[in-house]
């Protein structure tokens, strides 16, 4: 039982890792918390669903459609909304992203309604190993996320784009002086972040039914994971996501599962009270 919950928690944590990473990257480069992360995840799930069931594409192809759709949405929102607000305080950007979140979620609702949907994938029998039940979806999720994390790591650490992103995150004016084009970096960040969230949407759609609220269910855990890792720290976000995932699943041992959703809220409340810098980073969070 405990081992099973641990396994489930690990997979839930991996699923949270992609959007938490996305949240933290936007915070690092553009200096605001993107409230629309949940709604973008919803958009990704629906884009993949349309590609999968309406256009008859395979799931990997649908996932590519989802990643592209959300990446484009990210770039367009940056152009239309966030770029125009770039000189405001971070809370204006946060509120604007709340507005964006309403727009995205309700565009999905407008065209596809409130009904629950699911992908057309063959139902497969869970594998059993040492008394553990391991679903096919869990394996897919774990593998996809691990590949993405390795790719993002390579991109951030060993590519000119990654170096430029880290430079802008670290010190925007110095980066500008050295000839790093902030506009271009912002767009590329949105593209990367959108692709990550879109993929997470597909994985979420495998795990549960797709409805307009699917992203909202992950909203607090995603924020909790990114805050736990110290906003702006990519490694921290992934570690935070794993901890939140484990905490959520393991909480079933002590509290009713109805309250699972507030586990992550409690975790960050306690964390912020006692260690306000997150686990790994040292950014000031107190006024």
């Amino acid at each position, binding site marked *: 039982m405990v081992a099973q919950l641990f396994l489930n928690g690990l997979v839930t944590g991996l699923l949270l890792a992609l959007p938490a990473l996305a949240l933290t990257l936007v915070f690092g480069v553009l200096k605001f918390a993107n409230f629309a992360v949940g709604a973008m995840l919803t958009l990704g799930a629906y884009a993949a669903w349309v590609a999968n069931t309406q256009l008859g594409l395979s799931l990997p192809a649908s996932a590519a459609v989802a990643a592209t759709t959300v990446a484009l949405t990210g770039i367009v929102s940056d152009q239309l909304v966030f770029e125009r607000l770039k000189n405001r305080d971070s809370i204006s950007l946060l509120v604007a992203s709340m507005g964006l979140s309403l727009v995205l979620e309700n565009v999905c609702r407008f065209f596809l309604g409130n009904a629950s949907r699911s992908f057309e994938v063959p139902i497969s029998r869970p594998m059993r190993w040492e008394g553990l039940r391991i679903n096919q979806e869990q394996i897919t999720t774990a593998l996809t996320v691990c590949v993405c994390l390795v790719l993002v790591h390579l991109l951030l650490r060993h590519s000119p784009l990654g170096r430029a992103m880290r430079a802008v995150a670290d010190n925007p004016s110095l980066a500008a002086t050295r000839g790093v084009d902030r506009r271009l970096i912002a767009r590329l960040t949105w593209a990367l972040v959108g692709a990550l969230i879109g993929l997470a949407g597909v994985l979420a759609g495998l795990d549960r039914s797709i409805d307009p609220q699917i992203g909202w269910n992950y909203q607090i855990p995603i924020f909790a994971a990114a805050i736990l890792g110290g906003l702006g720290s990519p490694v921290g976000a992934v570690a935070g996501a794993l901890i939140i995932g484990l905490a959520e699943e393991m909480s079933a041992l002590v509290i009713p599962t109805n309250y699972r*959703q507030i586990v992550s809220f409690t975790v960050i409340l306690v964390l912020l009270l006692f260690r306000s810098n997150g686990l790994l980073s040292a950014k000031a969070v107190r006024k």
Partner: protein
Amino acid sequence: MIPYLITIAILVIIAALIGLALNLQWGLAGLVNFGVVGFVAIGAYTTALTAPSIGWFPAMVLAALVAAALSAGLALLSIRLEENYLAIITIGFGEAVRLAILNEGWLTNGALGIANIQRPLAGLTERFGGDIVFVVFALGVLAVVFVALEGWTRAPFGRALRAIRDDATISAALGKPVFALRVRAFAIGGAAMGLAGALQAFYLTYIDPSQFSAIVTSYAFMAVIAGGRGSNVGLLVGAGSIMALLEGTRFLKDFISVIDGVQLSALRLALIGVGIILLLILRPQGLVPEARRKAADVLAKSREAA
């Protein structure tokens, strides 16, 4: 047509009340609160649960007090945090309230909600044209809250809050008790949200958890941004008209047959999102900007006097 207008009027009054509360917390004191709906829900449930035994007026007072107490408690825990963190803590609070209401069926009747809530002045309602009485009552509550908040805004309390919002460090250096003032602002805002919840419970005479979704919070933010952060008059004028327009579209479904009810509500919510973004970009100071005295005015006067 008249019942439509009355419904719109009351929904706008409730939204304006919530907007005024958020305007104190966020507009005046600079404390972002994404858990607005949680406090409204607490007010509504407190009223619905206690009104039958202690009467409508004590129940409303209790709703305001309970919401204020929880608000102060949350503020004590988290108000020192930087904005982005305060934002997520308050979202989490809103969700926690929703889950508690949904799952503690012994108290709140869970997803089924509480029905048959008695309205205040029910006797009068029979005699004078039905719901009009309730509109007057709701307007009265709104007026009391508005006068109180406007008084506080002009008082040293409001000035200190604005100073803290603009620069907490300088205010602290000038001897303002920054932390205590922030907690008080948050608590007073919470009380007004509780009252809004009470009105909602009385008007609908039925409450369930689905009424208290994050949309309520978005409405409040839209109202504050539209009105102009920190300006109570702006909130009533600007927000009132925009809310009336948005609420008005609720009834379009009787006249439009091309799109169904779900699509219409989706369209309305998307419009709120677009509205928030457009107002932030095009008119960040709101429709009625906060009144500010320029340093030169004050200085010129003191020079004349001297």
